[in-house]
């Protein structure tokens, strides 16, 4: 006991023998905590994998609603803030206070930028009726029918995203009309809780749609699965991206699920970014006071680890959500 007091370190807790023991404990504790973060996101990745695995067409169709450019920019922003964070840790270890302060500020700005772009994305989703939960144009539940106009608007928005060069010409009035009809059809389809019992009010096109559902329930996904390796199928799919009416009614019901998963994953990630920003702000204040130096930089290091894991999760989110092929 007495001996330790000889070269007393104010940051050394009483139950540790040496600073390095304390530092290593903190690090292993942080890493174990990061493992829990990965497992937690793992649950969402699992939901993603299962629904993408069972309904690939839905994901292929719905991901067009996301803005790949904004996603890519956000990736770069987050990577850059990771760089400045790593630099900040280095500065703290070397005792370079001004650099540390600047780096923390830049990292914080990176977080602000990321959340800003995220806000732009979210608000554009919101304004097109593609929000979370039942506020999604594709949301289907008996009793809360999707508003056909809202749905048409959303579809138009998504498909103008999907095929800006190749398919713009196809969005003729006739095309739109068909979509409206389809949207109307959908309501009736959902009414039929048990399935495909016919309704006399349906137009002929809708009837054929119903037939489609019973005869080819797996829809396009099974087609894709079966003709794997057959180049022609891919050529067709490349030339003409999926449209809403390419999906069978069962799949049309599931389109909103892509958005739910998208909002859950990016939302949880966004919350982590916000928490990280709060922590970095706290570090920033302490760094201004000159708390950190070669003998005491553990908080900077740990927050850095946290910030990097947030980045690391985004590295997976980006291709999985924005770059579905």
């Amino acid at each position, binding site marked *: 006991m007495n*001996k*330790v007091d000889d070269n007393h370190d104010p940051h050394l807790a009483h139950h540790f*023998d*040496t*600073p*390095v*023991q304390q530092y290593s404990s903190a*690090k*292993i504790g942080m*890493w174990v905590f*990061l*493992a*829990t973060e*990965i*497992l937690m*996101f*793992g*649950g969402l*990745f*699992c939901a993603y*994998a*299962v629904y993408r*695995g*069972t309904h690939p067409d839905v994901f292929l169709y719905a991901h067009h609603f996301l803005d*790949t450019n904004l996603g*890519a920019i956000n*990736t*770069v922003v987050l*990577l850059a803030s990771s*760089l400045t964070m*790593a*630099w900040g840790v*280095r500065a703290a*270890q*070397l005792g370079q206070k001004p650099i540390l302060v600047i780096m923390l500020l830049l990292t914080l700005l990176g977080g602000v930028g990321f959340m800003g772009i995220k806000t732009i994305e979210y608000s554009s989703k919101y304004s097109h009726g593609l929000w979370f939960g039942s506020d999604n144009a594709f949301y289907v539940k008996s009793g809360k029918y999707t508003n056909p106009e809202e749905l048409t608007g959303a579809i138009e928005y998504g498909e103008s995203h999907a095929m800006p060069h190749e398919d713009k010409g196809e969005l003729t009035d006739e095309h739109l009309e068909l979509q409206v009809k389809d949207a109307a059809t959908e309501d009736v389809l959902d009414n039929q809780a*048990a*399935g*495909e*019992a*016919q309704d*006399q009010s*349906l137009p*002929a096109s809708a*009837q054929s749609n*119903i037939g489609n559902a019973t005869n080819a329930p*797996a829809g396009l996904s099974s087609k894709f699965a079966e003709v794997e390796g057959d180049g022609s199928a*891919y050529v067709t799919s*490349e030339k003409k991206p999926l449209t809403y009416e390419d999906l069978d009614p069962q799949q049309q019901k599931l389109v909103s699920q892509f958005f739910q998963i998208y909002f859950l994953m990016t939302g949880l990630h966004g919350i982590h970014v916000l928490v990280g920003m709060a922590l970095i702000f706290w570090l920033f204040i302490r760094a201004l006071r000159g708390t950190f130096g070669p003998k005491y930089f553990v908080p900077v290091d740990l927050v*850095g*680890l946290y910030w*990097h*894991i947030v*980045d*690391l999760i985004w*590295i*997976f989110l*980006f*291709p999985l959500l924005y*770059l579905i*092929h």
Partner: protein
Amino acid sequence: MSQSKHAEYHVHVVPLRVLFAVFAALIILTILTVGVTKVDLGGLNIWIALGVAVVKAVLVALYFMHLRWDSPYNGLALVVAFVFVGVFIGFALKDSLEYQKYVERPALLDRLQQQTIPAAVPSEETTEESSSEH
């Protein structure tokens, strides 16, 4: 025992050029992963996207997160976490794909549904259409 460890009090500081090199690599990989979606490779696309993401993640973990110079236990925590996420997703996905056949309507139900369509519905077009369907 307490004092003897002071000699080991030494933390690896990552050189700046390493940080920049890693950052450059990450940016290049990001461009690559966006670019590769323009090329149609069939089922390979997703695996390439995931592969690039894994490489990026490894770079971040090894250099930004110092794992390369850290205690191997810390790296183990990360690896184990990913392995268990993999186990979880693997089993759940495998099961979901296998049981899809039960999600589809069984033929029995369709037959029964047909039978229970009431005969007395007067609007005749529907009945005709439905029978022409099958």
